[in-house]
């Protein structure tokens, strides 16, 4: 059996096992912010967090990553790899989906090996959650995860369900056999109740069935113009999005060492410079075009390229938009006409 039931204390045992295999990161509250940070014990982690400011993509596609170092004339090298494996503890299903989407994208055509190497080295522990008023993962089919984790933890009050999602996770679960057991009938009922409660707690939802088709027809919609006027194009939504992975590359010389680093920095398709080419031509000069592009890429382009949208409904872009724009109401406005 891939699922085990145990009292909450098992998390401590699990944690100490994990910390023997690598550096453990988990959700830590600091003031109003929750961030994935190194954990020294399970008590550092906030298990009932809503969402971290940055998604776990920061572990695989670090902001400001050095791709190459140029030394003398015609000499360059790749930075040394960190050998230590990392353990990401307490990722919600939406973030697991986010990592999966990025992994599929990064593996396509020419694989992005720096990303994929880091991904391969990570051991991932998922964690169940309840939605708040900004979550719409259920609408995106991301409220549960079938893959993308080694172990998934569901918190059920005084019991904890542990589910293995990889051979390594399975081996680890078996090592905990002394403290864990087969789920009982009662455990199953609790799980069912938890699922019911979770599903009932969503206040935000969006019907995406016909979205790609609607988007095809609504390219000229007034909505884009209005959004363009409202959006700061500050890029917050892209930076915090678990699936936004655009980057810019610049070479940064160091005065002290004389070396130059080639650095990739998180970019956003909302910036004016994004589609600017030599000669000053800009393929998306207007804000409205750029705002529209972001939505189209996520909900239509990605579907055409990879079979599903590249939005997991985590609500981060809603919670961090200083202009108060939210995806759900944008799409609602577009689809409403068709629903009637």
């Amino acid at each position, binding site marked *: 059996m891939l699922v085990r039931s145990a009292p909450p204390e098992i998390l401590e045992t699990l944690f100490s096992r994990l910390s023997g295999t690598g550096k453990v990161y988990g959700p830590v509250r600091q003031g109003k912010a929750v961030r994935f940070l190194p954990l020294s014990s399970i008590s550092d982690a906030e298990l009932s967090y809503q969402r971290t400011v940055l998604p776990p993509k920061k572990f695989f596609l670090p902001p400001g990553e050095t791709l190459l170092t140029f030394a003398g004339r015609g000499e360059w090298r*790749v930075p040394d790899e960190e050998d230590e494996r990392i353990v990401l503890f307490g990722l919600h299903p939406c973030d697991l989906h986010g990592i999966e989407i990025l992994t599929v*994208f990064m593996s*396509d055509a020419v*694989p992005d090996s720096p990303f*994929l190497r880091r991904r391969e080295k990570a051991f991932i522990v998922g964690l169940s959650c309840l939605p708040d008023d900004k979550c719409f993962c259920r609408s995106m089919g991301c409220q549960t995860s079938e893959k993308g984790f080694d172990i998934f933890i569901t918190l059920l009050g005084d019991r904890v369900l542990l589910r293995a999602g990889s051979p390594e996770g399975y081996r680890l679960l078996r090592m905990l056999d002394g403290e864990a057991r087969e789920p009982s009938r009662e455990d199953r009922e609790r799980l069912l109740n938890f699922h019911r409660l979770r599903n009932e707690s969503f206040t935000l939802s969006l019907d995406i069935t016909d979205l790609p088709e609607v988007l095809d027809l609504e390219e000229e919609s007034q909505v884009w113009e209005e959004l363009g006027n409202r959006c700061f194009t500050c890029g917050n939504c892209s930076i915090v999005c678990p699936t936004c992975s655009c980057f810019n590359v610049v*070479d940064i010389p160091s005065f002290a060492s004389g070396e130059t680093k080639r650095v990739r920095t998180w970019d956003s398709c909302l910036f004016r410079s994004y589609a600017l080419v030599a000669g000053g031509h800009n393929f998306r000069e207007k804000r409205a075009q750029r705002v529209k592009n972001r939505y189209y890429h996520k909900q239509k*382009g990605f579907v055409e390229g990879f079979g599903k949208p590249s939005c997991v409904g985590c609500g981060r872009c809603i919670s961090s938009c200083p202009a108060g724009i939210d995806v759900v109401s944008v799409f609602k406005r577009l689809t409403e006409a068709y629903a009637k």
Partner: protein
Amino acid sequence: MTRISDNPYVPRKAVLLSRKELSPTCTLYRFRGEGRGPFSFTPGQFLLLTVPGVGEAPFSISSAPSEDGTFEFCIKRVGRVTDHLHRSAREGDVFGIRGPYGRGFPVEEMKGKDVLFIAGGIGYAPLRSVLLHLLKERESVGQISFLYGVNTPVELIFRDEVREQAEAGTVHYWISLMEGDLDDFPAPWSRGLVTDFIPRVPADPENAIALLVGPPVMYRTAVEKLFEKGFREENIFLSLERRMECGIGKCGHCAIGYRYTCVHGPVFPYFEAITLTEAI
């Protein structure tokens, strides 16, 4: 999980063999790539060229595929990287290259057909690769017509080659200028837009392929006139230029809809191009 191949961000070395000024802003650079086996590419593909310590930028290969590992770029001076190349690159200097990347022109499909080239300005550079390739086996294709438009006579790059080909009669050139004159040139020329020539070109639209490289504005008129002439969507190919930071479909800058210019292009058949939002 996917197998992770070599790090695609690490360039291999290329040595600058020679440079030749083509116009006040354009220079032809000849390189030899080093290491990692033979260097083969399809005309229309591009490489990312690193000037160590300064930056990286994509350039179309401007020479025909060859056995000896050499290749040429025709580079226009517009910003940091190109500026540095123009000012400081010397024979023997070591640069970095990544690629070749992307989809090139369908050279196989051209066999036995008439080929119509339409170039605006520096758009000549990637088309030259196709042209030189076809000229190696001139008999394999039918009529070769080349409509070439520039603003002023000094911008007419590869002038000697053009003259030679025109004189030999292997390529029929039509040259358009926005201002200035071309004295004593062995090819027809006139003032106006390069697309003005399209109706006059003798090509059998049923059995011809048109290849277009130029600024976005050129594409719109050119395609319209090609349609008028009877060209079909699937026989018109154009190269789209976008900003690129990676060349391998990751950085996002060149994405049009779900397609990445660097992976699925830069050469697109016309039908694919129109399905891409904002393409032309």
